Every structure is written in C-alpha cells, then in structure tokens.
C-alpha cells in the first residue's frame, strides 16, 4: 500500500508548466473508467500519489480526503464507523479513486432516493487550468458563499480542474436492509415504487433485470419488515445484486462487446421504444440498453421523452458520447472551459470533442 502524501504543489506545478507550454494533460486516477467519455490525447497526470483522508468526523457526517484515495479504502473506513457514501459510486474495477468518482459524477442505485454525487459534495480544492490552487465550498452542509464551483466539478470529467481534495456529506448505514423480487413489467416499476413510498416503505433501490423487478428496503428493522410485508414478492437467496448493479458487474453491463447506452429519463416515462435488451434502474428513470438502433434513433427517443442518452461504453470513436448541447448551452460550456482552463490543457475533449 502506498502511503498518504500531499502532492498538491507538484500537481499544480505540472499544470502550470503544461499551460505555459500548451501541452495537453490527461488526468488519471485508477483508470477504471477510461472507457467513459472521449479518449484524451495528452501527457498522463497521475493523481493517485495525492492520497489520504484529511479529516473524518463521524458526528458531523463529513469526510474530507485527497482525490487519489482509493474508494475501497474510504468505504471501509466509513463502514467501520457505521456510515457510507449514500450516492453509491460505481466501482467498475478495483482501484477507482475518489477523484475519479467526482470527475465521472456517476451515482448508484440509491440515486432517486438519497441523491446524486453532487448532492453530497460539500467542498473541493482544485488546481485550475492556470495551475492555481483554489478552494470552493467547505466542510459544512449549508454554505452559500460564492458560486457553487464544487458541484460544477462533479461530472466535468476533469475538464475544468484537477480535483485535489473533496469534502463529502456521509450518511449512517441503515440498521437493516432487505431485497425483494417482484414479477412485474419494467413499465410498471415507477408506479409500484411510488405506491410503496407513499405507503411509507423505505425504498432505496428499484431496478428491473429484464426478467423481474428488484426492490431494496433500508432503514429501521421494523420499518423494513413493515415495508416488505406490504410489498409482498419473494426474498431472493442472493442479494449481491445491488453491489453488482452498482459496480456494473452484472453481465449485461460488464460485457465490453458492442455499445452500451445509458438513457436518463423523467419520472414515470414509458420505456423508450427501441429494439434490443434493456435493464432498468432508478425506479424506471435509468435505462441501460443494448441496441442495433443508430445513435440518432436512440437520442431522438430519449429526447422525445424529455431525457438524454449517453453512449456509455463501446463507442465507435466518432459518435459523440454525450448528448449534443443546445447552441446557447454549448456556448456557455465553451466559455466556462475557457474561464477555468484558458490554455485548454485539462482533459481536452473528454466530455465534448470541441473543448
């Protein structure tokens, strides 16, 4: 195991030098999500040496750690204190880092019930594209001083700054947890979960594997029992499903052959009418799709429902990974990129090819 160390200055110096020379950099943590976004040409900038927990106050529900800290290490520390990262960042392979989880901004099955990555970020320290170290947000839950640059770094895929440290809101682990399997169609999932929630069932996961629906209940043991009684269904013998769903370890998600689409939809949307097998998460608001349909068809179907589609993995290198932006929004994006990274050296093109 590598030891904890502060590499802020070195990282900032590397970015400063790269900006001065106009040398593009490819920021990299554990490299577990290299497939996500467009490939970046640039000198690798390894964030992993900058690692370690800086402060953890279980009674403040707050943890600050350096970006290179492995997710496994953080989750173990939290579990030892009866807490967790409630946004359930996917660990698609061993070695993923906190910085990578923030940059990718991907949230797990709890997303509709307890919030996304960005909802748990309290503050960040970053190196911007000029090599300046800046701190935004803080270590407290309520903080409205200055523009919210911390949440802006979430999901930016390292294009606006190299994240150095992150402060997160953490939550208690539930006292009890139980999985249920129900026989219902994917299109019925949203309504069924809504009914359960309004009946007070502590639902924290709602997925469909193509054959049956999976529901997860978490909370006080009595509440989980009561919820399970109301919902009915079968209790599966093996409930490793949720961990494998979160980490994209289910065969449907893990298969590297062919494109995998991620379609994000408004609540209560009908499943998109596209050919090919699908998996459902987020109570029907997230569709994973293997399809022969063209990118234009997939994106049109998503847009028609008020959502958007990401070519999550298995792209052909020319299809844009993320849904193209409206012209005005695209202009704001390019300007933001210029504001934080004037030389355009940070992960250039990873999010959208033109910046």
């Amino acid at each position, binding site marked *: 195991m590598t030891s904890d160390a502060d590499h802020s200055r070195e990282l900032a110096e590397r970015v400063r030098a790269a900006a001065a020379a106009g040398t593009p950099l490819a920021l990299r943590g554990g490299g577990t999500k290299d497939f996500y976004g467009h490939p970046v040409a640039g000198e690798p900038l390894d964030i992993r040496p900058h690692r370690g927990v800086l402060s953890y106050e279980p009674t403040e529900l707050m943890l600050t750690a350096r970006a290179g800290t492995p997710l496994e290490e953080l989750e173990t520390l939290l579990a030892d204190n009866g807490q967790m990262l409630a946004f359930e960042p996917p660990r698609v392979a061993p070695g993923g880092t906190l910085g990578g989880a923030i940059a990718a901004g991907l949230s797990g099955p709890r997303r509709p019930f307890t919030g996304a990555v960005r*909802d748990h970020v309290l503050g960040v320290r970053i190196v911007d594209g000029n090599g300046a170290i*800046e701190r935004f947000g803080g270590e407290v839950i309520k903080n409205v001083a*200055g523009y919210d640059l911390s949440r802006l770094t979430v*999901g930016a895929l390292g294009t606006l700054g190299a994240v150095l440290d992150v402060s997160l809101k953490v939550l208690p682990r539930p*006292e009890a947890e139980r999985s249920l399997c129900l026989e219902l169609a994917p299109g019925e999932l949203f309504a069924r979960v809504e009914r359960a929630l309004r009946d007070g069932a502590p639902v924290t996961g709602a997925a469909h594997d193509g054959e049956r629906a999976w529901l997860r209940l978490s909370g006080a043991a009595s509440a989980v*029992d009561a919820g399970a009684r109301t919902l009915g269904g079968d209790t599966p013998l093996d409930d490793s499903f949720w961990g494998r769903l979160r980490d994209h370890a289910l065969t449907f998600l893990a298969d590297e052959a062919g494109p995998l689409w991620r379609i994000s939809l408004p609540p209560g949307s009908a499943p998109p009418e596209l050919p090919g097998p699908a998996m459902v998460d987020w109570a029907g608001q997230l569709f994973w799709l293997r399809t022969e349909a063209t990118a234009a068809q997939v994106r049109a179907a998503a847009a028609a429902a008020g959502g958007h589609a990401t070519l999550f993995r298995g792209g052909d290198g020319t299809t844009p990974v993320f849904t193209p932006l409206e012209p005005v929004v695209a202009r704001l994006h390019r300007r933001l990129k210029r504001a934080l990274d004037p030389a355009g050296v940070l992960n250039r093109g990873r999010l959208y090819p033109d910046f």
Partner: protein
Amino acid sequence: MSAQHPYHTDDTAFAVRAPELIERLRAALPEHALVIEEAERRAYESDGLSAFRQLPLVVAIPESEDQVQAVLAIAHELGVPVVARGSGTSLSGGALPHPQGVLLSMARFNRILELDPERRLARVQPGVRNLAISEAAAPHGLYYAPDPSSQIACSIGGNIAENAGGVHCLKYGLTVHNVLEVKLATIEGEIVTVGSRALDAPGYDLLALVHGSEGMLGVILEATVRLLPEPLTKQVLLASFDSAGTAGDAVAALIAAGIVPAGLEMMDGPAIQAAEDFVHAGYPVDAAAILICELDGGAEEVRADTQRVEALLREHGAREVRIARDAEEGARFWAGRKAAFPAAGRIAPDYYCMDGTIPRRHLGEVLTRIADMGREHGLGVVNVFHAGDGNLHPLILYDGNRPGELEQAEAFGARILELCVEKGGTITGEHGVGVEKIDQMCIQFGDAERATFFAVKHVFDPPGLLNPGKAIPTLNRCAEFGAMHVHQGQLSHPELERF
C-alpha cells in the same frame, strides 16, 4: 459592509443616461409596468435587510417573458445594471436596488404552470411563493421540502438565487437538491434551460451553478421543482439542558447513532426566554439550551427512532425530555422556535440576524465567544441554531435610534462571521452574501478564488450588468477592507490560510 455605503465606487461607475433608459423602457412596457416617480420607487428601496436602503433609478414590473427579455435587451444595449427581485425578503441585501439600475420585479410571475402529482413535480413561475407550492400540492398528499422561515412570503425565484434552506435541510436538502430544471433569461437576450426532469443532464452542472448565484448570472423565468410525499407520521421531542455545550454533545450523539432527524433545532437561554414570553409555548425558561427534534417517516420507523432518541438524549445530559402526545403539542414545541425572530423583535427595537455555519463540534466554544463579544460591543444576543446542519443564527439586539448602535451591531456581526470562518465554517449558510457580507468574502476566499468567480460571472454576463456589487467583492474592495481591518487590529489569526 456598512448600511451607509452599501456600494463600492467600483460598482457604481456605469455611464447611465436616465432619460434615454426611461424612454426606451416606456416604449417596451405598458405604463403600469413601470415605476418612475420617486415617491413610488421608495417602496422598493429595501429588501428584508431594512437597514440598507437604496433608491433604484427605475422599477420595471414585467408581465411576460417577452417583456423581461425586452428590459434585458435595453439594459444590455445601454449598459444599465439590472437587479432582479422576487418578494424582496432577502436578509443579506441581495435584492437591494442599484442606484444606476433597473429594479426588475418578478412579482407578476406568480402562476403555477403545471402540477403533476404522479411524477411529483411542479413547474412554476419565479414569483410564486414558496408556501404556495406546498399548498397547491397538499390535496395530493405532497409538499415542496425547503422551508425558509419566510416561506409565506418569499418567492421560488429568490429561493433559487439564494439557494435557500430551512429547518429540514439535514434530511431533505437545500433548494439545490429540490429543483430539477430552471429556465433563465441571459443579459445577452437568450433563453436557456439548465437541469432536466431526468435525474441528470448532459454537460456541466449549470443547474447547481445557478443556485445561490444571487441573480448575477441570469434572470429566472421558470422553475420545475420536485415534490415529496407528506410523511405518514411525525413526532416532536423537546429536551432541555443545563449548558449549550451539553446540548451540542447530545446532537453529536444522535448523529453518531445513525439518526437523521427531519429537524433538529437548538435555542439558547436568552432565546428560550424571549420566545416563551412571546408565545407561551411552555418552554423550560431556566434551561441553558433546548433541543427540538422532529422525526418523520413510516409509523414503525418513527416509533423506533423516538425511543432511541429519547434514550440518547437522557444518556447525554438532557435533564428533561418531553415527547409530544399529539400533533397539537408538537406544534406547540415548534411555536417558540418559529417565533424566535419576532420574539427577539419584542425585546429590542431592532435585531440583526447573522447566518454563519460552523462544524457542530465547535458550538460550545463559539457560543461562549459570541457572548464575550456581545459584552465588548455592549449589545445583547440571542442564538437559534439549526443544530442538525451547523447553521447558527445569532440575533444581535440593538436600537437603531441610538447613535452608534447600528455600527456596533455591524462590527459585532462581522466578528461573528470571521469566527465562523476561523472555525472551518462559512459566513453564510442560507441567507446569501448580498451586500451585507461582501467584505467577509475577502476573508473566506483568496484572490485566486475571487478571480475564478469573476471569470464565471463573465461567462454568463460579459458586461457585468446583473446585480453588480453583490456577493463577489472586487480586488479593490478587498484591498481597502484588508487595510482598514488591520488598522483596527480586528483581523484575528492573520497566520491562518484564508480561503
């Protein structure tokens, strides 16, 4: 910042020709959508921070998005500042008019455009009052979670601009966690939608950036918010303590035990007394601190949590724990807390409400130091505290008619904010920076961060016309503030890294 001079000269250096502006606005808006006479403009000179007053050059009260765009286009063309305002309840002067600018009142944008109980969302105009959303949702068993204390009056547009909080933030989040999509008009005359009804949107999280941006990036035209099912059961507990420090430790114990209360509020001795005298809630007036703890959820869960919370509170030094026998008694437990501000208004002619946030573990020490500072400034203070999330509201008591007291209150308030930063917290948890705390931004952030803030501002508002002089201090302002501060010898711990 001082109430006498809310704007820095840097922020009022626009070359505005009033007659031309008014002529152009008259051509674009119906007569009743413009307020030009000085006597009528007076009504707009303050927001909720009434010590600060500034007459706007002109007030526009548009009725349609086209009219908003027309006002912005004229302002853009003529280089005129624009301050957007919802209900004008800001406690930080965020909606204080600009002396050279248009005050853009969004009051007539007060319609709920869509309420979808199945999808649990509402699409509303920016002038819709916070509470009106919950009232409209109530027949469907739904509500809008963020509940700032001004929720009867404050507008959703203002809530987004300030990223408003409330008493239920620990469990249900701030405004930013409860808004799905926002439609904005830019100063360049375009309309842009950020966020999505889906749980994420492609590209950068511009929705988060808009929250808390204090009207400096765009004018909000519409918002889609998430609604939550009303909890099936609620329970309220009231615990009293012999010291605020013990109460703080009890809060830590609850959190450590894995309880996430819907609301967790603390009041100190003076606040208890003031509230009790006002609403007769039955508070223990001899206690040094009380905690009000609200639990919600399914019946089973609330029953189990109530037992655990009661045991934990007793174990951690509560000398008395009351459990509300019914909803009425629960409402009585809350009544004093909800009336804390007006109660402070009864014991002093004026009060000045602060809004710092601290890591909870420093509570005991911070309260002691606030009391010491109060003695130094010769002013009383009562403290109410969102204990679940560390957001402290000291109410500084003063009399604005006594010469020098307002200045003492401002100086005292500034020291409280600096103490919050020193303890690893922030100068504002939920009220925003506005003009009020703009100097303290120089303490919380360094030059690099402020340069980035200005760069972000420039992305959305290149000519710098939207709400100038608020939230983000210029380099000049910070230089002058720093010099003044060191002269007075008040900058504590100069050796600390400031950010």
